[in-house]
């Protein structure tokens, strides 16, 4: 009689060469057909744990203790041939980055057939039928064309579907999904996850869902495991972990979920910056015989930013939100439309432009590339004051020191180099650099997207705090509505270069009008306090039936 326990990890310890422990004494179990989520931030060891199950850890990582048993047999005792028989039919894996997980030089059909050929030798024709059926099942249309195409011809979402198809072809007992949807847009994320859950339930496949995205895991997993710095700090049924978290770290994670603050009353004033009919078009060419239409990224955007308010611009990739930010900072010239700053028209040069340039600063997304690696923290922040009128060098030094203090990097942080700082600290430096001039407008382009959840919460708090103190206006660009809930006064939703909906925060979140807005909202949870002092995750729109999965075509 087959035991219900499929995967049994017992006090597993993994260490890297130089004594650094990656996973420490981890113990957990997965039963047949169940979905277990593993949640943790970067450095938690969750990925290595997942890889260790199939002994796919990198060469530098060794097991120094504990065991992993699949269906009662230790994977470390397997001989190479047995290990190969385990990989695929028993345990399969789906990876995070769809861009690099499929071999570029083989067609999709060739890659999908490999697993079947290896484990189920049989007629090529039956393989092909199975593959085509599975591809249709995961939502791809025009299946025969898909088989002959190369991975680079597909979008990220489609590649993930192909990966899932590839893993499920052999009907494994356990599917390890390592951040399966992190690299995808919010709406697609949901579609792919729903498909994954349906497919695995159909086939009786257990799922180990590894992610940093706690709400996503909590939504689909029946049991949850929380990891931190290589250790499992909490396990239990999802509802219980959420309702009554036992460990401090779990509580911290839950606290990072968006919490709405009461709306701020803002005195109506003339807008600081206003845009009318802003258009941006790339690559339009006037040839000798024909005119080639360019790629229109922004279609006539109208936008007002008032002093002291935080306006959030939300959209998925391709919505044009990043281009909007680039236009407003002057990095990209608009092809059409007009900008006004403090009521004056904004030309490409002149006194108004200089004033605007000085008063509009930006914080970028990637903390690892937005700071010149060869400059110290103080130098980086001070550079922004290079062109500041009317400040003596001594005053500049003071201003730099004060600003660094305000972002929480006082003391000797000024002497450090970017590579000595963590991601969160680097973003603080970027914020200090942007704010040292005390600008009127700060544009934050996905400023917290690349940070771990706990760090993200800290930086958001910092931004909110500084905004209160210095009183600058903020244009906060993000793909994540959840982040925005915490910080925005007004919200603008963009899609395909157009503004779909805008309004005050409460209106957008509680009474969305447009279907697209509702779709975006459907992907993020709400927190509801429970009587026992924990939280309950609720998803908006759950009352509405989720739409049937439309077949996704090749182009």
């Amino acid at each position, binding site marked *: 009689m087959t035991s219900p326990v499929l995967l049994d990890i017992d006090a597993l310890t993994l260490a*890297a*060469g130089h004594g650094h422990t990656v996973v420490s004494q981890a113990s957990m179990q997965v039963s047949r057909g169940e979905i277990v989520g593993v949640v943790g931030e970067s450095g938690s060891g969750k990925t290595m744990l997942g890889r260790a199950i199939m002994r796919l850890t*990198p060469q*530098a*990582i060794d097991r120094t203790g504990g065991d992993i048993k699949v269906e009662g047999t230790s994977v470390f005792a397997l001989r190479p041939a047995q290990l190969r028989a385990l990989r695929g039919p028993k345990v399969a894996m789906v990876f995070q980055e769809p861009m690099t997980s499929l071999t570029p030089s083989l067609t999709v059909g060739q890659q999908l057939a490999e697993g079947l050929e290896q484990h189920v030798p049989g007629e090529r024709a039956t393989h092909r039928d199975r593959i085509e059926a599975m591809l249709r099942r995961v939502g791809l249309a025009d299946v025969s064309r898909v088989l002959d195409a190369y991975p680079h011809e597909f979008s990220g979402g489609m590649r993930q579907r192909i990966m899932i198809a590839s893993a499920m072809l052999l009907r494994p007992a356990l599917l390890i999904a390592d951040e399966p949807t992190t690299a995808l847009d919010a709406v697609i994320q949901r579609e792919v996850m729903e498909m994954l859950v349906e497919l695995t339930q159909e086939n009786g496949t257990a799922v180990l869902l590894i992610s940093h995205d706690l709400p996503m895991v909590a939504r689909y997993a029946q049991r949850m495991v929380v990891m931190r710095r290589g250790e499992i700090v909490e396990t239990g049924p999802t509802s219980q972990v959420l309702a009554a978290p036992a460990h401090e770290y779990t509580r911290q994670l839950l606290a990072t979920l968006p919490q709405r603050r009461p709306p701020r009353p803002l005195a109506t004033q003339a807008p600081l910056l206003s845009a009318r009919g802003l258009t941006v078009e790339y690559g339009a060419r006037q040839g000798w015989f024909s005119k080639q239409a360019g790629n229109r990224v922004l279609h006539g955007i109208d936008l007002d930013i008032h002093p002291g308010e935080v306006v959030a611009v939300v959209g998925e990739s391709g919505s044009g939100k990043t281009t909007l930010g680039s236009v407003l*900072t*002057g*990095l990209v010239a608009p092809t059409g439309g007009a900008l006004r700053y403090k009521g004056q028209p904004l030309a490409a040069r002149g006194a108004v432009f*200089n004033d605007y*340039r*000085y008063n509009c*600063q*930006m914080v*970028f*997304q*990637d903390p690892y*590339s*937005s*700071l*010149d*690696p*060869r400059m110290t923290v103080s130098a980086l922040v001070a*550079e*922004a004051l*290079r*062109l500041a009128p009317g400040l003596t060098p001594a005053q500049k030094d003071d201003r730099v020191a004060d600003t660094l203090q305000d972002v929480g990097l006082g003391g000797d942080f000024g002497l450090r180099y970017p590579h000595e700082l963590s991601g969160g600290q680097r973003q603080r430096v*970027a914020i200090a*650099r942007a704010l040292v001039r005390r600008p009127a407008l700060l544009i934050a382009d996905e400023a917290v997207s690349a940070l771990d959840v706990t760090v993200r919460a800290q930086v958001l708090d910092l931004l909110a705090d500084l905004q209160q103190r210095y009183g600058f206006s903020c244009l906060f660009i993000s793909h994540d509505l959840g982040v925005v809930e915490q910080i925005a006064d007004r919200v603008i939703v963009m899609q395909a270069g157009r503004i779909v909906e805008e309004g005050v925060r409460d209106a957008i979140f509680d009474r969305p009008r447009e279907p697209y807005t509702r779709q975006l909202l459907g992907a993020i949870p709400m927190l509801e306090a429970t009587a026992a002092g924990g939280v309950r995750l609720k998803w908006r729109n759950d009352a509405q039936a989720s739409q049937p999965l439309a077949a996704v075509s090749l182009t």
Partner: protein
Amino acid sequence: MNRRSLTAVVGGTLVAAVVITALVALFWTPYDPLKLNFKARLAAPSLTHLMGTDELGRDVFSRLMRGTTASLRVSLMTVLLATGAGVLIGAVSGYLRGWPDRVLMALNDALLAFPGLLLALGLLAVFGASETGIILALALAYMSSVVRVVRGTVLSLREREFVRASRVMGNSELYTLMRHLLPNCLAPVIVMATSMCGWIILAESSLSFLGLGVAPPAPTWGNMLAGSRTYIGQAAWLAIFPGLAISLSLLGINLLGDALRDRLDPRMRRRV
């Protein structure tokens, strides 16, 4: 000592030995490299002549030392010239884009359409076989690779956010180029310059060997090897030592270049 340090140490030692020899030879060699001594023609290596003598009685060791100076001088001058010009052109081209970039790239591609040694040979036909001629010919021939690498680095750095941040701050294009872009190009340029030293030494020796380099009696490794061919049966040491000198120099440069690349190019570091 791990493998990476071993590479650096061995490479560094060899290169240091070459440089020291070159510097010492400027002032002193055991014998006068040009002095003829018919009584000691083709003498095998011994205590008096550590590496033997050649067909005109000249001490091989001394000639080798002087040849080191010559090779190093040519190599350094060429690398400086090629790197300096290459960085300038590549940076300007990569940063400005537009038509200056296209014109410069067309010219650069023209240079690249010729294999390195071929271009050097062709240019030597124009400049004439002298030390200056070789330096100019080799610098022009190898400059195009530097331009390509620098332009590529600048193009990718341009999109890095700290460059965009500099522009948002209101800094001019020129300031951004000088303060942010160029210093961050240093790493690939240093790696390239180190490898280039090796190619240049090899190219210069090859040209000398073919008779198109510095003419005898001034000794270079290449022309010493060329001269050794006639007597190779009787006096093998004439061929062995110059070649050994070239090999050890190249080995040192290659090892040092590897160690530098490991340190400076994060992509090549082994991932955990």
